[in-house]
């Protein structure tokens, strides 16, 4: 009996929804058809899921022992080359490779500020093993193996050898040519081994890591995990807690240095102030209690759109006219995405015109229930654009001051009550893994909360 052609069609996704529905119904009625299906489906699944079967097949002269290098035969082509690369990677893993005097060159370091590096940081410098600590900007090093690694500030990278480095904190993007297959980046908990690719790794002080493969394949070994994971081009892996739940004790954020003159600071931590961010595809609430306010705009992965909401209690402000005002925000690494994929980014600050509509709750607000705050496009009958600012590529740990006459006027009008600001990014990204910008929230343990600095005319 010939097998039902629909079995193969279903394996390769070639049935329409309706045909699949019909086929399912028939299988439920017909035990023989079901048995046939299960037999072919299992075989297909076994081929898909049993890596041992495939590695075995890729090296046909050995039937049950692991593949050996000497087994390489010409017909194998590049499927076997992948296995060989894997072996190469393993060899590096276990060889306890010795470091050599110089292993890399700093090929690009424009607009960089370095802090506490023990390696030379001028462009063109030859690097031996040691620490690079980039505080601002983006820098690229080329390892002698041919691998190039771009550091996005703030990043601390330990150069170990021509084939290995350790990411202590921050984000890097690695571009690895054939000559450097097996190039490895370690983080606190991970070992990321290149299998011919371009990939990015981030590691935050809060213990999160993110591996993203732009092209090709990497192997990831996680501490305490026996099985390696393979990540293919276009895929990513996230390790550690999701951002937004600080494990440190939360304390009131210190205020940034007071500007000279009679400025009054009001932060989101004062009075009935609050701050939170909402993300489109996230039904979870509680984003208001995290240490970071994340903001992102993207046309490529709509679910990653994020906006921040800031409410300031101006109750302490008397009716003296505000002559000057600025919004001060501390940029923090989000640990999500790569700044090399996002150009210098434009942001806008919108003021909510009718503060009576600002009845959002920091602990329960979500994109879904945020109403006018998540509406697209932004409703200009409800919001007024007060100011804009730019964050250059690679900026980190910087305090941003945003000021405008419109902002001052807006605060003046609302003195004595409260104001709600909506923070959005206008700039999109060139890749779905573009950077998510983050600002310290009032829950951030060490950085200042979003703060309005206000100068009134009280003479």
């Amino acid at each position, binding site marked *: 009996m010939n097998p039902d052609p629909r079995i193969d069609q279903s394996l390769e996704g070639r049935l329409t929804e309706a045909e699949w529905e019909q086929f399912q119904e028939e299988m439920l009625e017909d035990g023989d058809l079901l048995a046939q299906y299960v037999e072919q489906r299992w075989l297909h699944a076994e081929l898909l899921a049993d890596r041992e079967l495939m590695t075995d097949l890729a090296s046909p002269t050995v039937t049950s022992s692991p593949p050996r290098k000497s087994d390489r035969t010409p017909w194998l082509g590049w*499927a076997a080359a992948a296995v060989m690369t894997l072996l190469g990677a393993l060899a590096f893993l276990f060889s306890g490779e010795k470091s050599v005097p110089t292993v890399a060159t700093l090929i690009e370091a424009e607009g960089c500020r370095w802090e506490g590096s023990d390696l030379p940081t001028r462009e063109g410098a030859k690097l031996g093993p040691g620490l690079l600590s980039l505080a601002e900007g983006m820098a690229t090093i080329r390892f002698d193996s041919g691998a190039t690694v771009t550091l996005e500030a703030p990043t601390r990278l330990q150069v170990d050898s021509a084939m290995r480095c350790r990411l202590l904190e921050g984000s890097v993007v690695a571009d690895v040519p054939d000559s450097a297959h097996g190039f490895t980046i370690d983080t606190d908990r991970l070992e990321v081994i290149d299998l011919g690719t371009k990939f990015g790794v981030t590691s935050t002080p809060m213990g999160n890591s993110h591996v993203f493969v732009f092209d090709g394949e990497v192997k990831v070994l996680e501490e305490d995990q026996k099985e390696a994971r393979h990540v293919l081009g276009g895929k990513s892996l996230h390790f550690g807690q999701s951002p937004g739940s600080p494990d440190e004790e939360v304390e009131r954020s210190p205020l940034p240095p007071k500007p000279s003159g009679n400025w009054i600071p009001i932060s989101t931590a004062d009075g009935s102030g609050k701050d939170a961010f909402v993300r489109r595809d996230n039904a979870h609430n509680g984003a208001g209690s995290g240490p970071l306010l994340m903001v992102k705009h993207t046309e490529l992965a709509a*679910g990653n759109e994020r906006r921040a909401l800031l409410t300031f209690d101006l109750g302490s402000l008397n009716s003296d006219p505000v002559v000057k005002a600025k919004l001060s925000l501390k940029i923090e690494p989000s640990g999500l995405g790569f700044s090399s994929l996002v150009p210098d980014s434009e942001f806008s600050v919108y003021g909510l015109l009718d503060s009576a509509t600002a009845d959002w709750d920091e602990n329960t607000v979500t994109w879904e229930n945020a109403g006018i705050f998540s509406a697209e496009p932004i409703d200009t009958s409800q919001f007024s654009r007060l100011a804009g600012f730019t964050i250059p590529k690679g900026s980190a740990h910087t305090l941003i001051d945003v000021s405008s006459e419109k902002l001052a006027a807006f605060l003046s009008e609302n003195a004595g009550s409260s104001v709600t600001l909506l923070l959005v990014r206008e700039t999109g990204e060139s890749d779905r893994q573009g950077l998510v910008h983050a600002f310290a929230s009032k829950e951030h343990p060490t950085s200042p909360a979003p703060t309005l600095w206000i100068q009134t005319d009280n003479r």
Partner: protein
Amino acid sequence: MENPDSSARTEEYLLLLNEHENSIAAYVHTLVNDHADAEDILQACRLTLWKKFDQFETGTNFVAWARKIALHQVLNYRRSAKRKPSYATDPALIESIAAEIDRQSTQLDERSEALKACLHKLPEAHRQTVLLRYFEGFEIEEIARETDRSEGAVYRLLSRIRSVLGKCVSETMEAGTA
């Protein structure tokens, strides 16, 4: 996880998982059409298996126990809204498939061994196509591009290879029991 015999227990778990992960993976991929969904479920499965491992009785059938937990995960899986759903399987059918696999469960290891031998009997060109599809994880379109053939030709070739493999596995099994 801090109790004194935890490390021995952890080791036991890791050994069992290592030995049987492939068949658990094949099981989930049999029940779930969408590749990414299946991988998601497997990841959740490993965690659940570990969490529930104190309920596993040493010496009993690990795979059978793991299959039960995996089936539960499959039936309760909710795809994240972000992903475009490919065709979903009726829960009733999932249970029927699971029952059918349970029925064959004593033979599955043998079938897997038979499949391994059958793969080696394939002619070279077929072997390469299998590697592209299943080792490299290429879609039919990609294989077509890679090997300079039409998608239809690649599809037909893969169907034929699977059918040859299926027949070979059945014959090997019959020869074994005869």
